[in-house]
């Protein structure tokens, strides 16, 4: 599997070349264009638990599901172009028998050798139940591609580090974390515009995004006609 990341960092697009028989698992809706010798199959992962496709059907409109498209090259020399919804970057983070926790909307595509588990609840269900924020646990060996809203910056955490939950793209499982507030008092934190933050501890890699999707949504949403 060969890949090329083009038009960085705002209009970024990922091109993956597949040999005959090779597959790529992608976020639903990410496919922009592709060669004609590919097949696609869709499966679902229930957020916060295992789920089959029929269960997926019932939950289709509730946003509780996470769908994956599996593209497989039936012919030699096939290519696929993938892009995220929002303006932002794409990065490559291969896994070698390792685990990365990825913010649901930041997962773009991965090798079938990586298990994508949307039932990960390490942060607790209640805290992120709104705003369609959920987490996927990617573990195994193979290529993994992430996307962001805005630019991506990498932090090598050694000790302690605090990130606003909306700015997290992904982090290595070697990091410990707990949810907290940015300021000393809860009211002070919210007045300061900072909601819940994630306090990381230990050693590991952390990817952050320069822009916070829920903040952008909340900025635009009230200007739109009610649904």
């Amino acid at each position, binding site marked *: 599997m060969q890949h090329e990341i*083009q*038009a960085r960092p*705002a*209009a*970024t*697009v990922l091109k993956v070349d597949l040999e005959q028989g090779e597959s790529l698992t992608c976020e*639903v*809706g990410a*496919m*922009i*264009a*592709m*060669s*004609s010798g*590919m*097949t*696609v*199959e*869709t499966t*679902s992962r229930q957020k916060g638990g295992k789920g089959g*496709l029929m269960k*997926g059907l019932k939950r*289709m409109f509730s*946003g509780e599901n996470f*769908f994956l*498209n599996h593209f*497989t090259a039936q012919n030699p020399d096939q290519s696929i*172009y993938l*892009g995220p*919804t*929002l*303006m932002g970057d794409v990065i490559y983070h291969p896994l070698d028998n390792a685990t990365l926790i990825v913010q649901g909307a930041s997962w773009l595509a991965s090798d079938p050798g990586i298990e994508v588990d949307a039932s990960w609840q390490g942060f607790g269900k209640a805290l992120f139940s709104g*705003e*369609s924020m959920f987490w996927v646990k990617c573990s195994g060996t193979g290529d993994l591609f992430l996307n962001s809203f805005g630019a991506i910056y990498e932090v090598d955490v050694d000790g302690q580090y605090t990130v606003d939950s909306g700015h997290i793209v992904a982090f290595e499982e070697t990091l410990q974390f707990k949810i907290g507030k940015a300021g000393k008092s809860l009211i002070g934190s919210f007045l300061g515009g900072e909601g819940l933050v994630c306090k990381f501890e230990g050693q590991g890699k952390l990817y952050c995004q320069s822009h916070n999707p829920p903040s952008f*949504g*909340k900025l*635009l*949403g*009230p200007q*739109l*006609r*009610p*649904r």
Partner: protein
Amino acid sequence: MSTADQMPSDVQFEITQRPDFGLLSVQLADGQQIFAEPAAMASMTPNAHMKAGMKGGFKKTLGRMLGGESLIINTFTAQQGAAEVTFAPGTPGDVLHYHLDQNTLLLQRGAFLAYTDGVELTGKWQGAKGFFSGEGLVLLKASGAGDIFFNSYGAILEVDVTDEFIVDTSYIVAFEDTLDYRVTILEGMKVSSKIKSFFFGGEGLVCKFSGQGKIWIQTRAVNPFLSWIYPFRPTKNNN
């Protein structure tokens, strides 16, 4: 980054700030004209004069309207000397130049920015071809001889099709009409999983191109963004 295409042009131009904020500057000689989509003009020198109006008669105007473009096409003319006009698209993205030489280019709605004398722009009814797509129902057809400039949301990728190629309908910017095309459901979705992938896949409708020619694809699309923003809309008060 400036424009890099090797095509001839009837007008002197420069495309800067690519690919995120593509901006087109056109140098007009005295008396030279360029035609542009309304609101595309960002700035101009004093010798440039703008005239708004329907161009090409009622039928062509109607065709363009069906193509998702405005009824009005603005004409910019350099008077009493040379002039410079700068055009910018409505979305952050790229701008490309294409030189027509008695051939035809088909454009997605909203993708047209400006063109020079000698180019004819009309709507093209797609009939059942585009029936399910919601977009691409009517494409804009540019033909004749001259320069056309088109724009995108996100960067533009150029693909040289020599056999077959598949593009999600939302991401098509333009293509040469030497290509055959039809709107279809992805192959494997029908075979391996019947209708389910069509509904769940989110990638149900694609345009399948065959033959030889160029396609230009954008790296972002407006519809997915609208779906993303939808949950943030206020809910109706039912009292």
